[in-house]
């Protein structure tokens, strides 16, 4: 079974600074997807960024980028130029690739506070 671990329950960062959120996962699969979802105070879940395991290049979406280390089973999220709107819970998630029975497994989350 796949598991996702986020070792930082809470983090804070000054506005305009950079912060990195950690995630590790355990799987015997070779092909899979990894995600970071954001849950702001409104509780609406929003996809931030995704990474295909077969791609060596790290995904980037504007101020958000990942450091994907497949061998180490590590998938960290870097937020650059942090903004107050980045305050949210951030969930790392895993999904096996290309199957109809695809489940998205989430980690416990990291609560990020951006301090003005």
């Amino acid at each position, binding site marked *: 079974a796949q598991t996702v671990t986020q070792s930082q329950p809470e983090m804070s960062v000054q506005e305009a600074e950079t912060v990195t959120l950690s995630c590790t996962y355990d799987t015997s699969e070779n092909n899979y*997807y990894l995600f970071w979802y954001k849950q702001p105070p409104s509780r609406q879940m929003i996809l931030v960024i995704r990474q295909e395991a077969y791609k060596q290049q790290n995904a980037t979406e504007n101020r958000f980028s990942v450091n994907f280390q497949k061998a180490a089973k590590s998938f960290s999220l870097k937020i650059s130029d942090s903004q107050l709107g980045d305050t949210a819970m951030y969930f790392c998630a895993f999904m096996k690739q290309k199957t109809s029975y695809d489940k998205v497994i989430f980690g416990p989350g990291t609560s990020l506070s951006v301090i003005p």
Partner: protein
Amino acid sequence: SQTIHQWPATLVQPVGSPLSLECTVEGTSNPNLYWYRQAAGRGLQLLFYSVGIGQISSEVPQNLSASRPQDRQFILSSKKLLLSDSGFYLCAWKWKGGTNTEAFFGQGTRLTVV
């Protein structure tokens, strides 16, 4: 475009009472559907998922059940609620397989069992 509706938004129920949370998806067909629970200060725990009408997979043994009577309708139920059933319940959908990997979530239901 696709939308997902989940209701009610908030629910307070006494211990031992029944539960029915409903989730419907519009604008797509044959989606995978999911129920997650988020306990206070914790992550999202997958409760049930469904790949088609009448096909339900349970991830954890519990006091809850799920049903999918129609292609785009997913219902979470309980015959008798426990205090431990309190939490934030999220319904989600996604396209099957391929490169459509994003899960789309409803607004959630906050359930308080008293």
